[in-house]
């Protein structure tokens, strides 16, 4: 180490040492001359003899420098200087190479930074590695006859399918949390939380919508988070009857209070319930699920104040699953040990909640998962598409590299003489290769540097694309050291990749022919052609992918929804959160609808419990099976809708009437059913006047009309049946409602009028989720839209790069064959024949690319199968289109060189030879 630093110090003083060495040698020379003079030689003679004796001064200096150490670094600096000069001498070449590389490296960096954010980042809390998430798995709840048999009678939250048909969930009854929390030998803390969804947050009379998270008293302590200002929720705050306190996110403190310190001690209203802000979470903290990122943290037991009285029941119900849990392992305890301790305890507890043998037969079993990355909802959603994108941009980078390798090969041919001179003057082959590689790595680094700029832009636009239609998208990619290291690595690999072949080629030891032949030449064409074929094959792959995604998008756009897409404005209100109660709330909503309908330009207005797209996600207003007589209604969806719903949504009324103003809270409950439902359960009878029985209050609904079928839950959702039961929103009074306005012209023009009307009616109610129906529908296919757009862009880019490569290669070939073409023409070849001769070569290259590309495409396209909609991975249309585009593009790229070849003047060409 010591030697290293000494060398380093010397390295810095190199210039001074050069001077000293020169002085030292000069002194030697003088001494020697003096000695010789003393021995009797004349002055001049002595000096000459002394110089002769000294020998080659340059060589001595070279050898001495080597003794100073670090000759490698020395040579590297030399190479670098030389590389800079070469690069500056060919600005055109440098520009093209840098730009293509910047595009390739930038795209890779951008996509990788998303993967980094998604897969590699840990929760911003203390020691995230010791956190574990508690989940359970069990056999699916439905029996063979579709009856629900499971200890989980109700759930608030999600369950997702695990492998082999099991159901996995992170929701638990409160009793399970209490049992596991008591005297836990493996966790230092166990904490719970549940998503409080969107709440109305009023600060100084200004109401907005805010995401809330209910957390137990151990939550912040367990995560090891310290407050930015104030204090965080602790066990004292989380008990029935405690003073209502809240912790807000850093962003909320800035947006709503003008800074974290202003917020402490301030009163706020959450759904009209007063709370006091006691603290602000640190800026980087986003809760435990990167997908949620709450604005507001409330003590768990505050849910009783806000959601009363239903919430109080949840605490005592051992069959209702709602709370999520994380634990922090005690030091030295492994996750497997913790699971071994806790699983039997949970089993024992959950067995007491089973009421029948059927339930006992499939009790949930506890499993632990690593908690460091937070909950995986984003990961489940985005990692696959990002891997596919990464593969594509990787391929594009490969074509870009191939292109530069091509340019370098062509240039290497031009520099053959230079190389031959160097080699024959005694330069080691390895030394020359190293110098050429320095050049190409430097070029690549330049591309990488610009690539970072491109990546910053790319990350921004990708965030926009991926977040398509989502209010609070929390996947934030950034350029961190991980990402920059990958970029730097990519640059070096690219440089080596495209530099190695030309470097080895041009330093072949047979220097004699190169020295003799001034114009370069020699058999470089095979390497060039191989690269062009590879480029074409890669472009073909990306074209096929683009074709598949574009077809997917087209299929999705041609799906019949059964309701209007254009000219509909959607927005949501929640009057209950502002303090409105039954029965006044129904009148309040009904009056608002009438006022919206009177806005000039609005032809009709309606309301429903949720928009049609969201109704599928929000879940049903009614749990359990509905019945027609004694028959269970299987797979039907219930949507509580207001007057003129079918008219506004342009759903045809096939029989009877739609829900209208006659259907009041007190009047006879009614339903409108969809055609499919009518066909399935009433066959050819007229269902109007018949009855449907609801399970909850044994209410009977009278069927008053039949609507055409509509498709729930967006465009992709094939499993959604078209069986719908519309009930009157006034008779079911949901908390929040979504209004839909059918407008003339752009729906968003009416937002201002809507907000004025709502403010007039009740200024405490914020207007939320303002969106056009078209945008909301597109939101359900955002991934497909993104893919189609990106792939089209990528395919264009790859094709462009390949065409440039093809063009360059052909131009180079023609330039080298000027003489041959000239002779052919002198011997009577037609111009057309020459053009065809060149184009034939182009087609052979393109064909070669396809020969490799088609089998690879057939073999790999199944990897994207899950991202497609009603398109087979080996869709012949997409393949045929890609083949056509490749051949067309090849002909276009080859035509200019061909044309130029046909214009060669035989006299000039032959004389040149």
């Amino acid at each position, binding site marked *: 180490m010591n*030697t290293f630093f000494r060398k380093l110090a*010397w390295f810095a003083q190199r210039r001074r040492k050069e001077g000293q*060495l020169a002085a030292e040698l000069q002194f*030697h020379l*003088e001494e*020697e001359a003096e000695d010789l003079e003393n021995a009797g030689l004349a002055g001049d003679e002595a000096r000459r003899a002394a110089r002769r004796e*000294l020998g080659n001064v340059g060589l001595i200096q070279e*050898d001495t420098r080597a003794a100073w150490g670090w000759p490698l670094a020395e040579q590297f600096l030399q190479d670098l200087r030389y590389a800079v000069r070469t690069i500056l001498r060919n600005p055109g070449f440098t520009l093209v190479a840098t730009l293509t590389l910047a595009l390739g490296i930038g795209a890779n960096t951008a996509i990788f930074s998303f993967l980094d954010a998604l897969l590699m980042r840990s929760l911003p809390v203390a020691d995230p590695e010791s956190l574990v998430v508690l989940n359970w798995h069990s056999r699916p709840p439905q029996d063979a006859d579709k009856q629900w048999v499971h200890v989980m009678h109700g759930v608030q939250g999600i369950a997702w399918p695990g492998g082999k048909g099991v159901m996995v969930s992170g929701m638990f009854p409160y009793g399970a949390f209490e049992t596991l929390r008591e005297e836990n030998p493996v966790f230092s803390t166990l904490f719970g939380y549940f998503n409080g969804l969107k709440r109305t947050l009023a600060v100084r009379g200004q109401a907005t919508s805010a995401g809330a998270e209910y957390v137990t008293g151990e939550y912040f302590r367990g995560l090891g988070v310290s407050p930015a200002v104030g204090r965080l929720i602790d066990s004292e705050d989380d008990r029935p009857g405690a003073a209502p306190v809240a912790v807000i996110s850093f962003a909320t403190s800035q947006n709503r209070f003008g800074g974290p310190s202003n917020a402490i001690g301030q009163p706020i209203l959450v759904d009209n319930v007063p709370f006091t802000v006691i603290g602000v979470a640190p800026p980087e903290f986003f809760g435990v699920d990167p997908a949620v990122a709450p604005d507001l943290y409330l003590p768990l037991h505050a849910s009783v104040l806000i959601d009363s009285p239903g919430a109080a029941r949840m605490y005592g119900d051992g069959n209702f699953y709602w709370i999520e849990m994380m634990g922090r392992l005690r030091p030295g305890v492994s996750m497997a040990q913790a699971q071994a301790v806790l699983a039997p305890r949970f089993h024992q507890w959950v067995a007491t909640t089973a009421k029948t043998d059927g339930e006992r037969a499939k009790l949930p079993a506890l499993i632990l998962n690593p908690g460091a990355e937070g909950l995986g909802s984003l990961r489940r959603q985005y990692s696959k598409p990002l891997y596919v994108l990464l593969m594509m941009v990787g391929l594009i980078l490969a074509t870009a590299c191939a292109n530069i390798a091509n340019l370098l090969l062509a240039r290497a041919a031009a520099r053959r003489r230079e190389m031959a001179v160097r080699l024959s003057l005694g330069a080691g082959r390895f030394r020359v290769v190293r110098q050429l590689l320095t050049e190409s790595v430097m070029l690549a680094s330049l591309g990488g540097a610009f690539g970072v700029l491109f990546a910053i832009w790319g990350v921004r636009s990708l965030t926009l694309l991926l977040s398509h239609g989502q209010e609070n998208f929390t996947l934030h990619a950034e350029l961190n050291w991980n990402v920059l290291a990958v970029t730097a690595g990519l640059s070096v690999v690219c440089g080596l990749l495209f530099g190695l072949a030309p470097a080895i080629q041009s330093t072949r030891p047979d220097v004699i022919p190169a020295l003799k032949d001034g114009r370069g030449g020699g058999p470089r064409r095979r390497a060039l052609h191989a690269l062009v074929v590879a480029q074409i094959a890669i472009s073909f792959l990306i074209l096929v992918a683009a074709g598949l995604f574009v077809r997917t998008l087209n299929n999705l756009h041609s799906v019949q929804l059964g309701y209007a897409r254009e000219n509909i404005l959607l927005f949501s209100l929640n009057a209950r959160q502002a303090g409105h109660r039954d029965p006044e709330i129904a009148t309040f909503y009904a009056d608002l609808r009438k006022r919206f309908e009177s806005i000039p330009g609005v032809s009709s207005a309606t309301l429903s419990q949720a928009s049609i797209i969201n109704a599928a996600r929000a879940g049903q207003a009614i749990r359990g099976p509905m019945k027609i007589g004694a028959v269970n209604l299987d797979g039907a969806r219930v949507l509580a809708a207001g007057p003129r719903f079918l008219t506004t949504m342009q759903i045809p009324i096939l029989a009877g009437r739609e829900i209208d103003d006659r259907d009041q809270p007190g009047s006879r409950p009614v339903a409108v059913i969809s055609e499919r439902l009518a066909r399935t359960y009433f066959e050819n009878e007229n269902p109007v006047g018949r009855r449907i029985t609801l399970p909850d209050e044994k209410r009977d609904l009278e069927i008053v009309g039949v609507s055409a079928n509509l498709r729930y839950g967006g465009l992709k959702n094939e499993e959604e049946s078209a069986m719908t039961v519309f009930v009157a929103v006034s008779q079911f009074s949901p908390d929040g409602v979504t209004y839909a306005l059918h407008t003339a012209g752009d729906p968003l023009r009416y937002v201002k009028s809507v907000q004025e009307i709502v403010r007039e009616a009740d200024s405490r109610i914020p207007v939320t989720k303002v969106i056009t129906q078209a945008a909301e529908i597109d939101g359900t296919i955002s991934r497909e839209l993104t893919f189609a757009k990106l792939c089209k862009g990528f395919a264009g880019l790859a094709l462009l790069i390949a065409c440039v490569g093809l063009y360059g290669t052909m131009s180079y070939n023609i330039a080298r064959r000027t003489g041959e073409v000239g002779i052919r023409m002198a011997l009577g070849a037609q111009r057309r024949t020459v053009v065809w001769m060149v184009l034939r070569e182009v087609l052979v290259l393109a064909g070669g690319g396809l020969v490799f590309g088609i089998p690879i495409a057939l073999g790999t396209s199944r990897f994207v199968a899950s991202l497609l909609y009603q398109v087979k991975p080996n869709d012949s249309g997409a393949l045929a289109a890609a083949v056509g585009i490749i051949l067309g593009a090849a002909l276009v790229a080859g035509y200019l060189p061909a044309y130029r070849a046909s214009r060669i003047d035989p006299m000039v060409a032959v004389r040149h030879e």
Partner: protein
Amino acid sequence: MSNRTPPRIEFLQGTLDVLILRTLRPGPQHGHAIAKHIQRTSEDLLQVETGSLYPALHRLEARGWVAASWELSNKGKRARFYRLTPSGRKQLATQQSQWQSFSRAMRLILNPADQEAK
């Protein structure tokens, strides 16, 4: 150069270093004086090429066995003087004993009679 008798011996690999170190033991010297000293002491059998002397001096300096400084020569000119460092002294001792045993071994094998005479 050609008028110089007697025939010179090629340096063996690694010999120059130990000769330089040995030359510096009495005190600091500049490069030219070192070369002359080796030549003189070896009765002109060893001729130090300037082309190997200076790289060798700088190599020894890089290893920390000698240290260099600019001082006035006895003729009053600025010259770069080299002197042994403590680690150079140690190195010299090691190498010296190595060379001595090596040359003794060579002598034993090449001139067995010598040994008997002794």
